[in-house]
Protein backbone atom coordinates (compact mmCIF):
# COMPACT_ATOMS: atom_id res chain seq x y z
CA UNK A 1 0.00 0.00 0.00
CA UNK A 2 1.46 3.42 -0.90
CA UNK A 3 2.45 5.59 2.01
CA UNK A 4 3.91 8.96 2.89
CA UNK A 5 7.40 8.68 4.30
CA UNK A 6 9.20 11.25 6.41
CA UNK A 7 12.84 11.55 7.37
CA UNK A 8 14.36 11.79 9.86
CA UNK A 9 12.07 10.36 12.50
CA UNK A 10 13.76 12.48 15.15
CA UNK A 11 15.90 15.58 14.74
CA UNK A 12 17.70 17.41 17.50
CA UNK A 13 19.08 20.83 16.67
CA UNK A 14 20.56 23.78 18.48
CA UNK A 15 18.61 26.99 18.75
CA UNK A 16 19.38 29.27 15.82
CA UNK A 17 20.27 26.48 13.44
CA UNK A 18 18.42 25.69 10.23
CA UNK A 19 16.69 22.34 9.76
CA UNK A 20 15.16 20.65 6.75
CA UNK A 21 12.44 18.09 7.24
CA UNK A 22 11.92 15.75 4.35
CA UNK A 23 8.85 14.02 3.02
CA UNK A 24 8.10 11.74 0.11
CA UNK A 25 4.38 12.01 -0.67
CA UNK A 26 2.38 9.32 -2.42
CA UNK A 27 3.49 9.36 -6.02
CA UNK A 28 0.27 10.28 -7.84
CA UNK A 29 -0.89 12.82 -5.27
CA UNK A 30 -1.04 16.48 -6.23
CA UNK A 31 -1.63 18.28 -2.94
CA UNK A 32 0.91 18.37 -0.14
CA UNK A 33 0.67 19.61 3.42
CA UNK A 34 2.63 20.21 6.57
CA UNK A 35 1.04 20.09 10.00
CA UNK A 36 2.64 20.26 13.41
CA UNK A 37 1.72 19.15 16.92
CA UNK A 38 3.40 20.76 19.87
CA UNK A 39 3.47 18.35 22.80
CA UNK A 40 0.14 18.38 24.61
CA UNK A 41 -1.53 20.61 22.03
CA UNK A 42 -3.72 20.13 18.97
CA UNK A 43 -2.47 19.31 15.52
CA UNK A 44 -2.17 22.61 13.62
CA UNK A 45 -2.14 23.35 9.91
CA UNK A 46 1.00 25.02 8.58
CA UNK A 47 0.85 25.06 4.80
CA UNK A 48 -0.59 23.46 1.70
CA UNK A 49 1.20 23.21 -1.62
CA UNK A 50 -0.11 22.58 -5.11
CA UNK A 51 1.29 23.01 -8.59
CA UNK A 52 4.67 24.06 -7.20
CA UNK A 53 3.39 26.89 -5.11
CA UNK A 54 1.87 27.53 -1.71
CA UNK A 55 -1.91 27.45 -1.91
CA UNK A 56 -2.67 28.21 1.75
CA UNK A 57 -0.68 28.98 4.84
CA UNK A 58 -1.52 29.61 8.46
CA UNK A 59 -0.39 32.42 10.72
CA UNK A 60 2.22 30.08 12.13
CA UNK A 61 3.91 29.79 8.74
CA UNK A 62 5.89 33.01 8.80
CA UNK A 63 9.13 34.00 7.08
CA UNK A 64 11.02 31.52 9.22
CA UNK A 65 9.42 28.68 7.27
CA UNK A 66 9.62 27.68 3.66
CA UNK A 67 8.58 24.68 1.59
CA UNK A 68 9.95 23.28 -1.60
CA UNK A 69 9.44 20.44 -3.99
CA UNK A 70 12.97 20.24 -5.33
CA UNK A 71 12.38 17.25 -7.59
CA UNK A 72 9.48 15.03 -8.60
CA UNK A 73 9.32 13.13 -5.35
CA UNK A 74 10.48 15.10 -2.31
CA UNK A 75 8.59 17.78 -0.40
CA UNK A 76 10.62 19.64 2.20
CA UNK A 77 9.95 21.99 5.09
CA UNK A 78 12.80 24.30 6.00
CA UNK A 79 12.87 26.09 9.32
CA UNK A 80 15.45 28.85 9.55
CA UNK A 81 16.95 30.02 12.82
CA UNK A 82 15.06 27.53 14.97
CA UNK A 83 13.58 28.57 18.31
CA UNK A 84 12.81 26.50 21.37
CA UNK A 85 9.10 26.83 20.63
CA UNK A 86 9.57 25.15 17.24
CA UNK A 87 9.98 21.87 19.09
CA UNK A 88 7.09 19.72 17.92
CA UNK A 89 6.07 16.73 15.86
CA UNK A 90 5.85 17.74 12.22
CA UNK A 91 3.56 15.75 9.95
CA UNK A 92 3.64 15.71 6.19
CA UNK A 93 0.53 14.70 4.27
CA UNK A 94 -0.58 14.35 0.68
CA UNK A 95 -3.88 13.95 -1.12
CA UNK A 96 -5.00 13.29 -4.65
CA UNK A 97 -7.23 16.33 -4.63
CA UNK A 98 -8.94 18.60 -2.14
CA UNK A 99 -11.99 16.35 -1.83
CA UNK A 100 -10.18 13.16 -0.93
CA UNK A 101 -8.61 12.23 2.35
CA UNK A 102 -5.09 13.21 3.26
CA UNK A 103 -2.57 10.48 3.97
CA UNK A 104 -0.09 11.27 6.69
CA UNK A 105 3.48 10.27 7.32
CA UNK A 106 4.82 9.02 10.64
CA UNK A 107 6.05 12.45 11.59
CA UNK A 108 9.39 13.98 12.45
CA UNK A 109 9.93 14.89 16.07
CA UNK A 110 11.96 18.09 16.13
CA UNK A 111 13.67 18.99 19.39
CA UNK A 112 15.33 22.39 19.62
CA UNK A 113 17.82 22.69 22.48
Amino acid at each position, binding site marked *: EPEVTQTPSHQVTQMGQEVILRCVPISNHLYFYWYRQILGQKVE*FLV*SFYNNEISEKSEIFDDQFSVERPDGSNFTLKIRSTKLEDSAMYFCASSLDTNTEAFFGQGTRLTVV
Partner: protein
Amino acid sequence: AQSVTQLDSHVSVSEGTPVLLRCNYSSSYSPSLFWYVQHPNKGLQLLLKYTSAATLVKGINGFEAEFKKSETSFHLTKPSAHMSDAAEYFCVVRLTSNYQLIWGAGTKLIIKP
Protein backbone atom coordinates in the same frame (compact mmCIF):
# COMPACT_ATOMS: atom_id res chain seq x y z
CA ALA B 1 -15.99 29.36 12.30
CA GLN B 2 -15.59 25.63 12.05
CA SER B 3 -14.26 23.77 15.05
CA VAL B 4 -14.13 20.36 16.67
CA THR B 5 -14.51 19.39 20.31
CA GLN B 6 -13.56 16.00 21.63
CA LEU B 7 -15.34 15.69 24.91
CA ASP B 8 -12.98 13.26 26.64
CA SER B 9 -9.21 13.49 26.82
CA HIS B 10 -9.01 9.87 28.06
CA VAL B 11 -11.38 6.93 27.76
CA SER B 12 -10.67 3.65 29.52
CA VAL B 13 -12.60 0.47 28.69
CA SER B 14 -12.12 -3.22 29.32
CA GLU B 15 -11.21 -5.51 26.47
CA GLY B 16 -14.34 -6.89 24.84
CA THR B 17 -16.58 -4.00 25.93
CA PRO B 18 -17.97 -1.25 23.67
CA VAL B 19 -16.03 1.88 22.83
CA LEU B 20 -17.54 5.35 22.51
CA LEU B 21 -15.37 8.36 21.66
CA ARG B 22 -17.34 11.56 21.49
CA CYS B 23 -16.92 14.40 19.02
CA ASN B 24 -18.98 17.53 18.42
CA TYR B 25 -18.38 19.90 15.58
CA SER B 26 -19.29 23.42 14.72
CA SER B 27 -19.81 24.24 11.08
CA SER B 28 -21.83 26.70 9.09
CA TYR B 29 -21.90 24.39 6.11
CA SER B 30 -22.33 20.71 5.49
CA PRO B 31 -19.04 19.44 6.83
CA SER B 32 -16.62 16.72 5.86
CA LEU B 33 -15.61 14.87 9.00
CA PHE B 34 -12.88 12.36 9.68
CA TRP B 35 -11.51 10.19 12.44
CA TYR B 36 -7.78 9.55 12.48
CA VAL B 37 -5.89 7.21 14.80
CA GLN B 38 -2.33 7.48 16.01
CA HIS B 39 -0.70 4.46 17.57
CA PRO B 40 2.43 5.02 19.64
CA ASN B 41 5.38 5.95 17.44
CA LYS B 42 3.26 5.65 14.31
CA GLY B 43 1.81 8.13 11.86
CA LEU B 44 -1.75 9.36 11.60
CA GLN B 45 -4.00 6.79 9.94
CA LEU B 46 -7.44 7.49 8.55
CA LEU B 47 -10.11 5.40 10.27
CA LEU B 48 -13.16 6.67 8.43
CA LYS B 49 -14.69 9.72 6.77
CA TYR B 50 -18.06 11.34 6.29
CA THR B 51 -18.58 13.43 3.16
CA SER B 52 -22.37 13.92 2.95
CA ALA B 53 -23.30 10.43 1.81
CA ALA B 54 -24.57 7.80 4.28
CA THR B 55 -24.80 9.13 7.83
CA LEU B 56 -23.51 5.87 9.32
CA VAL B 57 -19.95 5.43 8.20
CA LYS B 58 -17.99 2.22 8.58
CA GLY B 59 -14.23 2.34 8.90
CA ILE B 60 -11.32 0.05 9.40
CA ASN B 61 -10.77 -2.27 12.36
CA GLY B 62 -14.49 -2.51 13.17
CA PHE B 63 -14.98 1.17 13.95
CA GLU B 64 -17.93 3.19 12.79
CA ALA B 65 -19.27 6.68 13.30
CA GLU B 66 -22.67 8.28 12.89
CA PHE B 67 -23.16 11.79 11.62
CA LYS B 68 -26.04 13.46 13.49
CA LYS B 69 -26.73 16.91 12.15
CA SER B 70 -29.35 17.71 14.79
CA GLU B 71 -26.82 17.05 17.53
CA THR B 72 -23.77 18.28 15.56
CA SER B 73 -22.04 15.09 16.60
CA PHE B 74 -19.84 12.49 14.94
CA HIS B 75 -19.16 9.97 17.69
CA LEU B 76 -16.87 7.01 17.06
CA THR B 77 -17.94 3.57 18.25
CA LYS B 78 -16.83 -0.02 18.24
CA PRO B 79 -18.87 -2.91 19.64
CA SER B 80 -15.96 -4.76 21.26
CA ALA B 81 -12.60 -3.27 22.18
CA HIS B 82 -9.37 -5.06 21.44
CA MET B 83 -6.01 -4.46 23.08
CA SER B 84 -4.64 -3.30 19.74
CA ASP B 85 -7.15 -0.41 19.74
CA ALA B 86 -5.13 1.40 22.40
CA ALA B 87 -4.11 4.63 20.68
CA GLU B 88 -4.98 8.29 20.39
CA TYR B 89 -7.98 9.18 18.25
CA PHE B 90 -8.55 12.50 16.54
CA CYS B 91 -11.80 13.91 15.23
CA VAL B 92 -11.20 16.27 12.31
CA VAL B 93 -13.34 18.63 10.25
CA ARG B 94 -12.34 19.86 6.83
CA LEU B 95 -12.96 23.50 6.11
CA THR B 96 -15.16 24.06 3.09
CA SER B 97 -13.43 27.35 2.29
CA ASN B 98 -9.88 26.15 1.81
CA TYR B 99 -9.95 22.42 2.63
CA GLN B 100 -7.71 22.74 5.68
CA LEU B 101 -8.13 20.13 8.39
CA ILE B 102 -9.16 21.39 11.82
CA TRP B 103 -8.24 18.93 14.54
CA GLY B 104 -9.78 18.03 17.85
CA ALA B 105 -7.53 17.75 20.88
CA GLY B 106 -7.51 13.97 20.72
CA THR B 107 -8.84 11.20 22.95
CA LYS B 108 -6.48 8.63 24.37
CA LEU B 109 -8.15 5.22 24.40
CA ILE B 110 -6.90 2.87 27.11
CA ILE B 111 -7.83 -0.79 26.99
CA LYS B 112 -7.78 -2.73 30.26
CA PRO B 113 -7.18 -6.48 30.05
